[in-house]
């Protein structure tokens, strides 16, 4: 028995492929993981809404056969909040990048986490602004080169998962495209959460970040992920010298907090109870 690609059924009818992404860009791998996670959870695609901002990753919604909203730079989470609050039955995924979510959209990111709006935020972190030619982002590691950091950046990067947890997210996890099987599980977990859930997907940009920092092609960058990431559980058992300089992956936070739209329904009930 010979079978068709299992993800094809989730692709947008009438849309031309392949995607706009460069050869070897990790974003397509993350897209595949999202498609499989939704398939496995059996969420009807009519209930799925994919909302994005601006940047390479934010081009994803047009390719997937969901309701989709490709918005303005940094604002995806604010748009998504409106979608979810208006119709809490919809499953809302936000596709965003490191520049989109953490620089221009940083304020919306922390406040949606604080409100605990039921959004599954997939942050495709490639440590650079890809769409516009390789400028540095809030997650470009200090010293790394970008088109606006020709001598290396002078800024410290920050950790999106820690930021989300501090702001009130109920779920935060980091995966890689090398570890796409785990990544897919994290996305599944995040989609099932009722509340603000973040999955940070480390997704290499060979065209800009890789070239500017001489990290090689897509294959080398994926293999780098294999060698330089450690799962949080494994890391906990290792001495500090073995984990120094490594990127920790895994689920960092998983809590139960009454989600925003449910709290707001309580407001509606209260207001209607008081109505004369």
């Amino acid at each position, binding site marked *: *028995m010979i079978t068709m690609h299992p993800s*094809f059924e989730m692709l947008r009818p009438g849309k031309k492929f392949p995607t706009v992404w460069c050869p070897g860009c990790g974003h397509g791998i993350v897209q595949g993981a999202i498609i499989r996670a939704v398939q496995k959870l059996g969420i009807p695609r009519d209930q799925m809404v994919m909302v994005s901002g601006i940047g390479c990753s934010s081009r994803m919604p047009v390719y997937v056969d969901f309701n989709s909203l490709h918005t303005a730079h940094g604002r995806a989470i604010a748009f998504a909040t409106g979608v979810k609050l208006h119709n809490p039955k919809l499953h809302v995924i936000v596709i965003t990048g490191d520049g989109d979510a953490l620089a221009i959209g940083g304020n919306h990111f922390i406040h949606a986490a604080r409100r605990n709006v039921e959004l599954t935020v997939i942050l495709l972190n490639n440590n650079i602004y890809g769409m516009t030619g390789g400028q540095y982002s809030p997650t470009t590691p200090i010293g790394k080169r970008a088109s606006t950091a020709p001598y290396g950046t002078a800024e410290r990067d920050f950790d999106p998962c820690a930021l989300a947890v501090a702001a009130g997210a109920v779920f935060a996890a980091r995966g890689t495209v090398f570890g*796409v099987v785990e990544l897919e599980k994290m996305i599944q977990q995040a989609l099932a959460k009722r509340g603000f859930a973040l999955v940070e997907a480390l997704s290499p940009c060979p065209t800009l970040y890789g070239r500017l920092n001489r990290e090689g092609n*897509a294959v080398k960058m*994926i293999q780098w992920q294999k060698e330089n990431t450690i799962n949080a559980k494994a890391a906990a058992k290792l001495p500090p010298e073995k984990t120094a300089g490594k990127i920790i992956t895994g689920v960092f936070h998983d809590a139960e907090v009454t989600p925003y739209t449910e709290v707001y329904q309580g407001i509606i009930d209260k207001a209607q109870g008081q109505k004369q």
Partner: protein
Amino acid sequence: MAKNTTVEAARAEIERDFQAGYDLPVYVYKPWCKSCEICVALCPKRVLEMGEDRKPVVARPADCIQCRMCELHCPDLAVFVTKEKG
């Protein structure tokens, strides 16, 4: 170079190949392939090799263990395993 086609067109093309007797464990839909070589590099059994046209070819079909590493890591949905494991 990759050629732009819709998923409906891709499906039709692949179905035609299947009907014509395609029997390899891995399928490469070349119009969508961007020649990034990830599938070739991550296959634990070296089933795939880059061909002269810079697209992967199924060089050692008998070695395929249906682990789907190629399919899961192809950013462009251009490579997939055609047979179930076991």
